């Protein structure tokens, strides 16, 4: 028996393959993005192979191009284009090569970075959602031409698809609990007088760095895609308003719908926020910047975001003087309330804070009465902390005039407060 020993620190190698549609103009950013993703997943890229042709139904690209890629002896072939179950089966059986497509590469990065229970479950659900039809198709291919009975597929293989569906149901139920907990947490935070602001945007736009700059925290931030997977929340005071700023997972172009569904509990931090800060990297070339903003808009639409949006054009310090206004004009239709900022040099953060305070729903004035009971007095003490108390008069009952959030006042109703 011969076994190959693989040292733990051995470098992973890959060849990138891109097939471009002949009727469309070539896209230089695709390979850049794929290379960035491969780097983030820890692969050393040996070569890049391009082909301009219509889709090959057996292998996605031409046979010769795949042989050319395999001549570099890579551990894996990474395709930019999505591979169908049949294509994966054909390439594996014909060339004995390990293949990944862009979506699987993203999932590989996610699974190495997932640290919380929620993130791990979401990655597993996304993987299973992708695998389920692949397994079904692979089983159909295996069973093609077989005889019923003795030469049929084994019970284990037959039940694999059903096992996957069962596991998916369990994960979905667990994630639904996490989502409910998140909803309760958001409600509690609103009752405590906080406004919820979410940071959203294309991956590697600088969301975590912006969170660190605004709140003075030290969340992990790196110049690579998908550094953040689980939401991270930090408190901040913006011109007298108490704000909770949440950093979320970045978006990427052409994400399959089921991946967005798998990350629903994380993305609900964006869809349920009071304000969304859409972060974009303004140092990108204009065409790429527009495309990334459009991809972010699509993801926000898929998340059913109804909150107002402020666009933070981050990394403005990398631009030449006078170029920023020109760029802002180019993306005006995609960038609501654009603010030029730099999370590293802290340029424009003051303007951003003003913009946040302006775009948040203004606090309403309320007049309520509280009973002279221990509970009423406890509620008054809570209102001192969570709202801006304008006046308190001690009459037959406590008459309180305050400025605050609807949820905070509704919470006071539980302690016997009445609105006047």
């Amino acid at each position, binding site marked *: 028996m011969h076994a190959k020993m693989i040292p733990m620190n051995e470098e992973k190698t890959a060849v990138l393959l891109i097939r471009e549609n002949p*009727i*469309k*103009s070539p896209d230089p950013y695709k390979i850049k993005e794929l290379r960035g993703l491969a780097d983030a997943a820890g692969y050393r890229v040996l070569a890049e192979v391009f082909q301009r042709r219509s889709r090959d139904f057996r292998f996605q690209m031409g046979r010769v191009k795949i042989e050319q890629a395999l001549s570099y002896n890579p551990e894996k072939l990474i395709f930019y284009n999505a591979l169908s179950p049949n294509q994966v089966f054909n390439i594996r059986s014909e060339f004995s090569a390990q293949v990944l497509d862009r979506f699987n590469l993203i999932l590989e990065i996610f699974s190495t970075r997932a640290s919380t229970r929620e993130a791990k479950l979401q990655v597993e659900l996304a993987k299973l959602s992708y695998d389920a039809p692949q397994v079904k198709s692979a089983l159909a291919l295996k069973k093609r031409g077989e005889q019923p009975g003795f030469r049929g597929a084994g019970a284990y293989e037959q039940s694999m698809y059903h096992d996957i569906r069962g596991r998916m149901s369990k994960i979905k139920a667990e994630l639904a609990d996490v989502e409910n907990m998140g909803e309760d947490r958001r409600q509690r935070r609103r009752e405590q007088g906080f406004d919820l602001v979410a940071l959203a945007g294309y991956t590697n736009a600088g969301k975590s760095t912006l969170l660190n700059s605004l709140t003075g925290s030290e969340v992990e931030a790196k110049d690579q895609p998908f550094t953040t997977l689980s939401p991270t929340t930090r408190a901040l005071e913006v011109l007298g308003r108490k704000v909770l700023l949440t950093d979320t997972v970045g978006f990427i172009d052409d994400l399959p719908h089921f991946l967005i569904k798998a990350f629903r509990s994380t993305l609900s931090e964006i869809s349920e926020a009071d304000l969304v800060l859409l972060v974009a990297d303004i140092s990108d070339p204009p065409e790429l910047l*527009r495309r990334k*903003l*459009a991809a972010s*808009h*699509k993801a*926000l*639409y898929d998340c059913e*975001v109804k909150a*107002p*949006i402020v666009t933070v054009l981050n990394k403005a310090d990398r631009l030449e003087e006078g170029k920023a206004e020109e760029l802002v004009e180019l993306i005006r*239709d*995609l*960038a*609501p309330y654009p603010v030029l900022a730099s999370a590293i040099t802290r340029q424009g953060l003051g303007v951003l804070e003003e913009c946040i305070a302006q775009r948040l729903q203004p606090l309403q004035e309320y007049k309520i009465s509280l009973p002279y009971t221990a509970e009423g007095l406890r509620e008054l003490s809570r209102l001192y902390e969570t709202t801006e108390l304008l006046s308190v008069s001690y009459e037959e009952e406590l008459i309180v005039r305050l400025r605050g959030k609807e949820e905070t006042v509704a919470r006071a109703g539980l302690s016997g407060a009445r609105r006047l």
Partner: protein
Amino acid sequence: MMVCAVVSARISPNFIEKIHSVRLIPHVARALDLNVVANFISRACTCLPGTIVAESGDLYNLEIWRVKSILGRDFKYPETIAERTAIEMAHHTSVAGRRLIIDAREDDTNE
């Protein structure tokens, strides 16, 4: 039997600011191809100013410059949240409109 719904609206990047008009145009064709779709869209958008926004699938994923030259109008695929919302609205309108027309025809036949 096809129905094309047109929503003429003024939009900001993430909201529909004002809906000027909603138009429903029915059309009967034996087969569907790019010419039929392009003529149908052109007819439905007659006298409506502004850029036409439509789903890429409706126009066979053609590149924007080709669609512009076929329609002879400014054209784009949806990018912003507001554009997608407007298209969703047009989609619901066309489905409901088609159903109403078909129901009305069935009622007429039964009578």
